Structures are given as C-alpha cells and as structure tokens.
C-alpha cells in the first residue's frame, strides 16, 4: 500500500488525558485500572479503566443533541494535544469536502439507551421524551458528532467490527486517500463504559476479578476500559522529520470459525499479520516490536501467541498494553496505534503491565519491563468477536 502519515494524534484513556500523560504512565509501568464502581454496576467483582471527569464534560450548545458518555469522551479527546486546531488547519489546507471521518466504536452511546429503558413510562412503556436515538444510540453517532463539530462535508462512516473497529478504520481511510476521494482523514476510535459490555463479558465468564494480566500463566480474563483515540492521516509531505510516523501496511482477515472464540491456532490472526507485512512490502525480520491484542483471556492469548510464534518465532519483543489501559474494545485499535507511534517517536518498547509470570506455553518474547530500544517498525494487532482480525504496521520516516 501507499504509506500515509499520522500527521497528528491524541489518546485519552484511564492513563490520562492526551499523549504526555499516556507516555508518562507507560514509562512508569502504571496501570489505570481500578475496582469497578461504574454507574450502578456495583455487583461485578472486576476492574475497569474508567476515564475520570467524562460526566463533567460539557458539549457546545450547538452539539447538545449528541450528549452521551461516548460523545463526551470524544469531545474530551478532541481537546487534547492541539488536535482540534490541527484538524482546523487540515481543513484550511484541503477544504471541507476533502476531509473524511472514519471512526470505530462497538457500543456508541448505548449507555444512554440503557438508562432510558430504566425510565420507561410505567403505563405506556415509552422511552423518555428527551431520549434522542440518532445522535446518541446509533452506531454512527460518534462519526456524525465529529463531522458536525468540524462542519465537514466529506465522506464519513463508523466501522463497527467489535474490537478490531478502530484498527480497520486505518485501512478504509488509506484506501480512500489512495483512490483520491479525500486528502485527509480523521481516524480512530471512541468506546465508553456501558452495562452491555460489562454484563455481557461477565456472562461469558471473561471478566478478570483482578487487574488483567495478559500472557501471564495465571491470567483470568480481561479488564474493560474506555478511550478516545484520534489520528489525522494525510499523504506524506515530501520532506518528513525523522520521527514522523507512517502507516506502512494493514492486513484484514476473518476467522470463519466462531462468534466469540478465536481460531484455536490463531489462523486468521496469522493471516492478518502476514497480509500487513505483504501490504508494507516487509518481512517478519523487519518488525522491531509487536503490540499484541493480548486481552488476557486464556483462549485469546494462547491463539494469538501461536500465530505470533508461527510468523516471528521468539525473535521479536512483544507486549500487550491492556494491563495498563484495560481493553478499550472498539477504541483499542486506535489507542494501541498511538501507543505504537509513541514507542516509535520516543525510542522505547513498552513492557506489559500486570504480567508477572509469562505463560511458558506461549513461545514468544514477552516484555514485562520497558526496554530502551528504538524501534523502526512496529506491528499492532486487533481482533474481535465474529472472528474479525486486523494488523497494522507503523514505521518511522527515518
């Protein structure tokens, strides 16, 4: 594929608001996971990566119809790292019609609907008058919110493929840039805590009672997080600084195996990583670090580990950063692309937080501490329910 530049980006998660807070937490091997006290969820013995202050975020009056936790989190994210101004500058360069919006989410503003169902009219069963479906519940709401906030007139879409959503948006946006339909794209993901995912993963017995421990022999499941990750993608400038980060390749596949369990040998995952390498014109030996999907469920880590070992052996250092952020679901691909970009720019490999004893049955080079080693190219994995797989390869300009 033709490389595209991550010309600006910002991440907000339980590690903090913006890139500096994210980087500081990664450097300190600090986790943002806390015992779950979210909303009315006091009966689940699990940890969550909740972003503080989301409910205090006020949307501008003209965007009031979009008010829900997911869009408040999106708005909070857009204010960090000068991202809002960077997008306005991109509009000035390219025009409103030439900027696309490609965002991933799994549950959008469903929390608003969950709460509205508690307040149904006791006689008619009707939802409250102030519940607005289109701008909160609908899966497209967050892309509509961003398109409206910036008054874009270009293409926009939400990719909703569960936990690969905000990795796959990079592939869609890169294609549209390559086709010449747009000159810039806002990509990323926003997913926020809600009852559907907390009680849903609980029903599958996949929630860890302690902060999650990816690739650990004693891993007991995942910890759910939330995040807003935004990236401005553009065609690379002719003169790039050495630390500019480029998307070099993307690989997308399907397991065709099971709705909620990965292929036991990680076949679809391996094919996605191989497809990303092929798209980037690279070999496995060219990759310096792998940011794993690494949810810390027993089956995911085993399947992904097999796929990684089959392609890379134990030669490439790897880790999952979900012990720090929690699994941010539809935002995970975007969040971890930004963590990968920070690793490229700041010259370190993030160690996996929460993992003490790496599962000896998984023959990969798993990092439990940060390593001072400047990667040139990294690969980030995102997989999800429905057997969806996406791998991204990011690299430094020089």
């Amino acid at each position, binding site marked *: 594929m033709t490389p595209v530049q991550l010309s600006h980006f910002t991440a907000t998660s339980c590690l903090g608001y913006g890139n500096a807070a994210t980087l500081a937490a990664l450097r300190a091997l600090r986790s943002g996971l806390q015992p779950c006290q979210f909303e009315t969820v006091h*009966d689940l013995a699990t940890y969550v990566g909740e972003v503080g202050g989301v409910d205090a975020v006020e949307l501008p009056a003209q965007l009031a119809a979009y008010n829900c936790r997911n869009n408040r989190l999106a708005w909070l994210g857009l204010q960090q790292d000068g991202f809002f101004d960077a997008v306005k500058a991109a509009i000035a360069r390219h025009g409103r*019609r030439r900027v696309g919006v490609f965002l991933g989410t*799994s549950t959008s503003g469903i929390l608003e*609907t*969950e709460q509205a*169902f*508690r307040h*149904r009219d006791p006689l008619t*069963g*009707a*939802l409250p008058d102030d*519940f*607005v*479906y*289109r701008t909160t*519940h*609908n*899966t*497209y*709401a967050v892309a509509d919110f961003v*398109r409206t906030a910036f008054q874009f*007139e*270009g*293409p*926009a*879409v*939400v*990719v*909703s*493929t*569960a936990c690969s959503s905000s990795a*796959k948006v990079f*592939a*869609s946006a890169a*294609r*549209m840039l390559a*086709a*010449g*339909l747009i000159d810039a794209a806002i990509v990323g993901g926003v997913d926020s805590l809600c009852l*559907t995912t907390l*009680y*849903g*993963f609980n*029903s*599958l017995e996949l929630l860890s009672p302690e902060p999650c421990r990816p690739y650990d022999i004693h891993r007991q499941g995942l910890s759910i997080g939330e995040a807003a990750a935004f990236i401005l993608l553009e065609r690379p400038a002719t003169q790039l600084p050495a630390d500019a980060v480029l998307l070099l390749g993307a690989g*997308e*596949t*399907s*397991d*065709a*195996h*099971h*709705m*909620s369990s990965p292929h036991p040998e990680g076949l679809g995952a391996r*094919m996605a990583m191989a497809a990303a390498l092929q798209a980037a014109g690279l070999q496995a030996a060219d990759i310096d670090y792998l940011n794993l999907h690494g949810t810390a469920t027993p089956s995911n880590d085993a399947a992904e580990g097999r796929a990684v070992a089959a392609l890379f052996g134990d030669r490439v250092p790897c880790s999952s950063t979900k012990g720090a952020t929690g699994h941010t679901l539809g935002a995970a691909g975007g969040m971890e692309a930004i963590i990968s970009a920070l690793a490229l720019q700041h010259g370190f490999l993030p160690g996996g937080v929460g993992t003490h004893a790496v599962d000896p049955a998984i023959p990969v080079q798993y990092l439990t501490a940060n390593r001072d080693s400047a990667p040139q190219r990294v690969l980030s994995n995102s997989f*999800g*329910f*429905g*057997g*969806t797989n996406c791998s991204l390869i990011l690299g430094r300009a020089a």
Partner: protein
Amino acid sequence: MRLLSYLDGIGLVGPGLDNWPAAHSILAGHAAYESRPLVVAAPAALPPAERRRTGLAIKVALAVAFDALAAAQLDARQLATVFTSSGADNDNCDAICKTLASDDRSISPTRFHNSVHNAPGGYWGIASGAMTPATVLCAHDASFGAGLLEAMTQLAVDGSPGSERGGTLLVAYDMPYPEPLHAKRPLPAAFGIALALMPARSAQSLARIELELSDAAPDTLSDPALETLRRSIPAARGLPLLQAVARGDACRVVLDYLAPLSLLVQVGPCR
C-alpha cells in the same frame, strides 16, 4: 475521481419483494408492487447450533449475500465483504436493554455476542468459510451509500483483495426495532440488498457501474409504495440503482448519501 466495477450478481429481500427475480419484474415495470410481510429463509449453510441463534437481521443479510453469489456464480472464499446497516439485530438490542433495566441483569452469552454490529459478518464467515477481509459499517440513513462507496473504493485500490477473480460483496440490511425503540427509530420492515461487485467484466456481468461523489439531488422512485420503502429504510436507498439495472438502459442514477454529498452512478448494461 471515478470508481469502476462490474455488477455480477444481485440478492434482494424486502416486504413484497421475495427475491431479486421477483423484484426485477416489479422494478422493470412488468409486475405491480404489492406490499406484504417479508419472507426470509433461515441460513441453511450454518450449522444447526448457529442457525438457531440467528435473528432476522442475520437471516436477511445471509439470504441476500448467498443469492448474489449464486447468481454471479462466485465462490464466497474469493471475495472480500462489506456489510452495512443502520442498526443491527434490533430485537436482540431491545432484549438486552430490557434485561439490563430489570432487577436481574444477567444477559445471555449468545445475546451478547449477537449484539455486535458485525454479527452478520461473523456468521457469514462461519457459513461461507470465507477468511477474506470483512468490514462492517454504519452511517445511519446513509448506510447504503457508505457501503457502496467503501466497496467500490476497495475494488479501485486493491483490485482483487481476495484471490482468483477477487471482488467485493456488498451486503446492506436493516430490520425494525420493537417498541419502545420503534417510536424513536421507526423502521417499518426488514430489507436487504447484496451486490457482487467485480473488478473486471465476466460472462455473468449485469452492468458496468461507475461511481463518483456528487451534490446532485438523489433520485426518487415513481411508484409511491416503493418510494416509501426507499425513504423509510436505509438499505432500500439502493433501489434506484437496482431499478436502473432492471430496466437495462444506460443511464445515470443519483443515490442518497451524506448531505451535501450524493453518489452519482453511471450504469451501463452488459447484456
């Protein structure tokens, strides 16, 4: 920038539109349209355990997808897929919200994994064996246009992302919400359109399609009942394109997308 593809197969299910051959006669003006409840078969290609777990949205999506491939004489394992829907399994969403609002919040594991927007994509992989890329989109009322744009862009950029003949299968589908969400989002019926879009002309090609972004006003349908379908169900916004294919004339169609944008499609018959 114009995007080019060849339409090799069509699947369609809607109220009073049982399948593409029936819809072809109606859209070509050879038969009258009469609205009646939608009929759709359970996906026979799924193993029985999975088949029992599929709701209406998945049934509609898989039915039109298999019909389009059969008409095009294509192997699912060679095509990438683009699924697009303004909602998903809306009965399932209603059931989860009701459970979560009750005193016992235990939702079933099946309900949870069927709640993801890409559930039809996941079942498609299981039913067809396709390990090719599958993306799943939502753009509210513009979901059909967003899906067509993504599929045509894939063909323009990647050529054949699958193998052999390659191509992309677009599957657009919607279903109604039960109350109380129906009052907030009144979708009247389920509807599905699948288009097998190929990078090169073949013996099966029905039409050559060229697409570009436009700001022309979207076309409407002259039959009032069909126009009501088009306006009220996002997946049915593709009907003007299928009407053009059914009539078999070279023509220009403007499809609804995200205001102020629309999709200008040049349709050239191949038969």
